[in-house]
């Protein structure tokens, strides 16, 4: 039997949960069609998470591209179909890429090894400086912190996931929640996830309540790492500091939980538990346009 999963018309970190919920009843080796025909918009998180869905399947799934030409063309310019072609059997009209997309700071890029992180950071720097200072009214000095943030979240894949993932960086106007421009980093993988990674720490004692939510709290809030090395765990702490300095938001989904460091402009839930399961880790960092002034 083939299961069909419908991708919502607007796909972001919240609406991706509809995809995961539909997926929950499909065995990993079951036949699957991911139907994005009616999807009109997708955030970098949505696109990279869709790719990790493809990665997670034992049996290669079918992917039906958006009917809307503009949407399909945009997805092509983000590099989505280039990677999707390796993971899915593509159906529908997949446009050829003609020129880059100005709002895409970093097209969807596979991250599997340390050199990929060098490549990503090298590619983003110049463009990020221009976008952060000119479009988001953020001090040019923030570019370095932005590149560091990108580097650390990508390294999460290399160090902990046990398999490759994807990163994308994009700017857009977030009308729904903020009414301002934002720059968004999305880094998604279908690897071990935080709980399993922390469980691999030698001699680790699990608490009674040990689950994905607690694993996320330990890693994201308390800076715990699977390594005994006291220098570990600084990456995500640094990401949190950077995001806090620029009034941004970071959310991490792993397994059946999602944690978010929520700024005052957003009403997201800080910790969600008992979500439908999805492998690996999915990270989103959002830095909004500054209305006035520098860091708080």
């Amino acid at each position, binding site marked *: 039997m083939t299961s069909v999963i419908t991708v919502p018309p607007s796909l972001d970190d919240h609406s991706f949960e509809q995809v995961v919920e539909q997926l929950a009843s499909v065995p990993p080796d079951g036949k699957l069609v991911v139907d994005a025909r009616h999807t009109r918009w997708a955030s970098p998180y949505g696109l990279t998470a869709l790719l990790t869905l493809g990665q997670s399947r034992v049996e290669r799934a079918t992917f039906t591209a958006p009917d809307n030409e503009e949407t399909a063309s945009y997805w092509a310019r983000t590099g989505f179909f280039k990677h999707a072609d390796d993971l899915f059997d593509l159906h529908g009209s997949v446009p050829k890429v003609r020129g880059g997309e100005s709002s895409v700071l970093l097209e969807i890029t596979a991250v599997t090894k340390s050199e990929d992180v060098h490549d990503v950071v090298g590619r983003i720097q110049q463009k990020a400086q221009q976008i952060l200072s000119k479009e988001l009214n953020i001090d040019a000095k923030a570019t370095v912190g932005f590149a560091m943030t990108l580097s650390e979240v990508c390294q999460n894949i290399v160090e902990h996931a046990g398999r490759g993932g994807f990163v994308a960086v994009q700017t857009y106007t977030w009308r729904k929640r903020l009414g301002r421009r934002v720059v968004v980093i999305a880094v998604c993988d279908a690897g071990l996830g935080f709980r399993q990674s922390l469980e691999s720490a030698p001699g680790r004692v699990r608490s009674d309540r040990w689950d994905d939510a607690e694993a996320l709290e330990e890693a994201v809030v308390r800076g715990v790492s699977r390594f005994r090395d006291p220098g570990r765990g600084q990456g995500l702490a*640094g990401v949190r500091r950077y995001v806090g300095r620029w009034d941004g938001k970071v959310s991490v989904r792993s397994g059946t939980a999602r944690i978010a460091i929520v700024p005052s402009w957003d009403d997201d839930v800080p910790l969600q538990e008992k979500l439908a399961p999805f492998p690996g880790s999915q990270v989103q960092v959002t830095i909004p346009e500054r209305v006035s002034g520098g860091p708080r």
Partner: protein
Amino acid sequence: MMMHIDLSSMLRQTLSCELYSNLVTRPTGAAVRSQIEALLADARERSLTIIDFSHVGMIDFSCADEVVAKLLLRYVAAERADREAYFLFRGVTDDHWDAIETVLERHGLALVLETDDGARIVGMVNDGERAAWEKVYELGRTVPSDLASALGAEERDAEALLVGLHRRRLLMRTEDGYVAVGGDGVRHD
């Protein structure tokens, strides 16, 4: 023994790639540190190494932990006086400082930065250590009695400060007293 290590060149050798100028990722940091340690292993005596960030674009937390913190941790308070290793950091800008400061705090470390007008001590030092280091930097070769009179302190307290700063490899101990890393009396060009 004096050494100058251009981190940018070392990074390119490590990655075998001319394109990268950023010190990012933990494996890269560990590889660069291993190269530095290999060079230091050849030193049969006391050494001063200039770690030069001048051509490094940026450094992230993970790489700073490997290249800066773990390097210092290995040599701070190392017992073999004949193999004492000291470090002076050159070319560190705001673009590098956030990551370096973070790892120094995390491990309770301090280091000496070369600046346009000399050198200064940064990281986790208390007011007494800072005042003592700055006085030695100003005085040049210093013995406990010099520091005691300069600070208006007891000689044994001054000596304890000098010993502590030497143990942290922020002062170099010579036969005639102590000199500040990066200060007069320590050749570092």
